[in-house]
């Protein structure tokens, strides 16, 4: 019989990673005497070890065992919690994570830090392995000498009176012996008190068993393992010569069976069955693969489209004869369908929502590591951890947030000495705050450090050719330059912030999620980076536009303003590039018709609408024929259904069954690759030519 348990590996992995996170967060706050935390950490390690052993992840088991031993000493108060141990344990968490990941991927993990850490723990434990080994060697088999002539075992079994109180049953022990071979039993009723004094919950019988078997002493002892403290057990080898004598005594198994039955009436007495009355409590949550949820969301998206189609047909029916009763009922049904599908869509979307805690969790550890490396004292404050957002957004926002927090730690906060000199507390604060606003989640990363050094940024920007010396910018505009491509204020590329990933990448990543990032800074007081993200990537608030009879969708979030075209503001310059004067600033004007090569180009600039859009801090004007409705649309990937198209981020299906393409505002940059000579916004130029 073999049962395949591999189906439980994903659960184990998920559970273990959660356990590791818990260990990490508890370790960071661990103080002497905090028994709850130590117990929680211990339990997490213990569960990982147990599960890993079951699945044969031996390296995980071995490593975690050492960690567990260390934790056990802390738990029992035999070891003080020192920063050294905490550090060691935090590193061990990383090692266990690595080991589990390699076990998951079926690869050998050769990371040298694992062995190093393993030795460090053993060193810390100062285990006297020699003694342990000596103890674990099984004691010598007393029967060794008699091995040759042995044909079985003579077992004298004198259970304590209370043996039944622990749920043990003598009969079952004997049944277990049966696996090894034939046996006979002899019961001694001598100790049995008179019936009047007999407590039916006690056992007063003793047995002599003769087992004919080639099993080892260990096998026999194992059967009695659970009761070894509750009985006197004498096991002696049975010699061939003794067998005959014993057979003559001839007490059959049945007698013993009956005897055993007699003495444990309570055990087999039926317990009144109330079970059926009380339903089994429902489970609080279930684990479902994300692909199932995505499939469901997709399906609901299709349903909403179908519903929109039906609604449109219903509207057409309105023009027909109104007295028709069937028609009236159909309309009522359609109205209900609309409400229900919208609710369904919202409910399904909510399944994907997770508290932002999942992202915030990593910060305590990161701040701990980074601040100790930088020699800064930092207090991390988290708030709004339970604010929910879409899992997909969550997965992608982690890295940008890490970068922003690193940036605050590295550039924002001062060293304790600097802080004291500036009249501040030596310990700096980094605060992460998440909250909902409209259809967006905002995450503010604020610090009480020195704030942005506007003058230094200006110098750097000049040096990098991002701005010209004769241009005037507000401080805010200068500060925003840190998001410009190729900008980095760190004088020396540090290990932390300057790993070649600049703030421009942060901005780009956030904007690719349909969000945006802004900053505000007060010199000497600190700075705040505000990240704003859509709650979900599956739905988009769109502005429907029409160009040459086609419907397109512009994400509402990128639209700054929509205006009638004014011929006076139009300015064509060298080549095809047009500029539009918008609020006393010339911005590039793109015609959707030209970009997508649609017909009727001759009169396009005569009439139509201008949509001012913003991407990566730069404004563009888009020329379209007509503005239509604003509506929530369900995003469909063009890439997976057709192919990636530059300038288009996806598609959706409209109520009339037609497909509308969603314009990728950022992607338009790349579509419109042509060098121009305008100089109002060099950053813009860089963006266009990138």
């Amino acid at each position, binding site marked *: 019989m073999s049962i395949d*348990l591999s189906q439980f590996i994903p659960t184990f992995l998920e559970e273990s990673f959660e356990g590791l996170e818990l260990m990490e967060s508890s370790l960071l706050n661990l103080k002497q005497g905090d028994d709850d935390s130590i117990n929680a950490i211990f339990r997490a390690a213990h569960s990982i070890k147990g599960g890993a*052993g079951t699945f044969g992840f031996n390296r995980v088991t071995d490593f975690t065992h050492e960690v567990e031993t260390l934790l056990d000493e802390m738990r029992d108060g035999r070891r003080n919690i020192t920063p050294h141990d905490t550090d060691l344990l935090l590193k061990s968490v990383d090692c266990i994570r690595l080991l589990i990941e390699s076990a998951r991927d079926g690869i050998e993990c050769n990371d040298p830090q694992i062995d190093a850490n393993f030795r460090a723990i053993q060193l810390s434990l100062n285990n006297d392995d020699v003694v342990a080994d000596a103890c674990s060697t099984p004691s010598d088999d007393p029967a060794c000498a008699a091995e040759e002539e042995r044909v079985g075992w003579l077992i004298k079994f004198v259970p304590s009176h209370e043996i039944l109180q622990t*749920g043990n049953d003598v009969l079952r022990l004997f049944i277990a012996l049966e696996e090894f071979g034939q046996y006979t039993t002899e019961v001694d009723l001598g100790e049995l008190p008179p019936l009047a004094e007999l407590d039916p919950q006690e056992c007063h019988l003793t047995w002599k068993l003769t087992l004919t078997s080639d099993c080892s002493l260990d096998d026999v002892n194992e059967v009695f393992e659970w009761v070894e403290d509750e009985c006197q057990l004498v096991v002696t080898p049975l010699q061939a010569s003794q067998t005959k004598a014993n057979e003559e005594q001839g007490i059959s198994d049945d007698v013993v069976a009956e005897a055993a039955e007699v003495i444990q009436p309570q055990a087999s007495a039926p317990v009144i069955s109330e079970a059926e009355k009380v339903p089994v409590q429902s489970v609080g949550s279930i684990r479902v693969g994300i692909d199932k949820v995505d499939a469901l969301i997709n399906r609901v998206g299709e349903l909403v489209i179908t519903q929109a189609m039906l609604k449109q047909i219903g509207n057409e029916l309105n023009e027909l004869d109104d007295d028709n009763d069937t028609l009236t009922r159909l309309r009522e049904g359609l109205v209900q369908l609309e409400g229900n599908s919208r609710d369904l869509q919202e409910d399904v979307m909510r399944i994907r929502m997770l508290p932002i805690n999942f992202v915030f969790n990593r910060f305590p550890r990161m701040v701990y590591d980074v601040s100790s490396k930088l020699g800064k004292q930092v207090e991390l404050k988290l708030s709004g951890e339970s604010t929910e957002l879409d899992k997909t957004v969550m997965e992608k926002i982690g890295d940008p947030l890490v970068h922003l927090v690193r940036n605050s730690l590295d550039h924002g906060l001062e060293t304790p000495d600097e802080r004291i000199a500036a009249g501040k507390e030596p310990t700096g604060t980094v605060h992460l705050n998440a909250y909902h606003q409209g259809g967006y989640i905002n995450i503010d990363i604020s610090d009480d450090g020195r704030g942005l050094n506007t003058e230094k940024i200006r110098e750097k920007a000049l040096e990098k050719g991002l701005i010209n010396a004769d241009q005037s910018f507000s401080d805010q505009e200068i500060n925003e330059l840190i998001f410009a491509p190729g900008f980095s204020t760190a004088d020396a590329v540090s290990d932390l912030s300057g790993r070649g990933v600049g703030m421009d990448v942060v901005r780009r990543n956030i904007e690719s999620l349909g969000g945006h990032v802004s900053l505000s800074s007060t010199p000497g007081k600190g700075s705040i980076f505000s990240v704003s993200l859509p709650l979900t990537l599956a739905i988009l608030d769109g502005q429907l536009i029409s160009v040459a009879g086609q419907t397109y969708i512009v994400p509402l979030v990128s639209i700054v303003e929509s205006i009638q075209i004014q011929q006076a503001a139009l300015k064509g310059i060298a080549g095809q590039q047009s500029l539009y004067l918008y609020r006393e600033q010339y911005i590039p004007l793109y015609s959707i018709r030209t970009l997508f090569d649609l017909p009727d180009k001759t009169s396009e600039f005569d009439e139509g609408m201008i949509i001012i859009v913003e991407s990566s801090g730069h404004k563009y004007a888009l020329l379209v024929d007509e503005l239509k409705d604003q509506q929530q649309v369900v995003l469909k990937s063009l890439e997976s259904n057709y192919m990636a198209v530059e300038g288009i981020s996806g598609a959706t299906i409209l109520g009339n069954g037609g497909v509308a393409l969603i314009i990728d505002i950022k992607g338009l940059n790349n579509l419109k690759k042509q060098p121009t000579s305008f100089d109002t916004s060099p950053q813009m130029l860089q963006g266009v030519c990138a």
Partner: protein
Amino acid sequence: MARILVVDDSASIRNMVSFTLKQQSYETVEAVDGNDGLAKAQSGRFDLVITDVNMPGMDGITLCSKLRLLPAFKFIPVLILTTESSPDLKMRGKNAGATGWLVKPFNPDKLLSTIKRVIR
């Protein structure tokens, strides 16, 4: 068929034990910790209780001693799931009235053969 209460805070262990038992047509009820286990124990009749030791809330040893105070559980076998066979732990389990123990790493065949020892 015998009804078994499985108490473990680790979902994977709980699921595996339960799965293995169900393969053999045992009926199982799962509980996530000692408190849950005690509540569920009182909600019905069980032929066997399998419990982990280290759990939040109430640990397995405490659960065992509390079960022994219930008349319906006075003689019901209680097996302790443990990763190590430390004599100290076994002693504590015994004192609390545990019938025996199952040593992790969890092996389905071993689990079933052990269970046969306490359930007919």
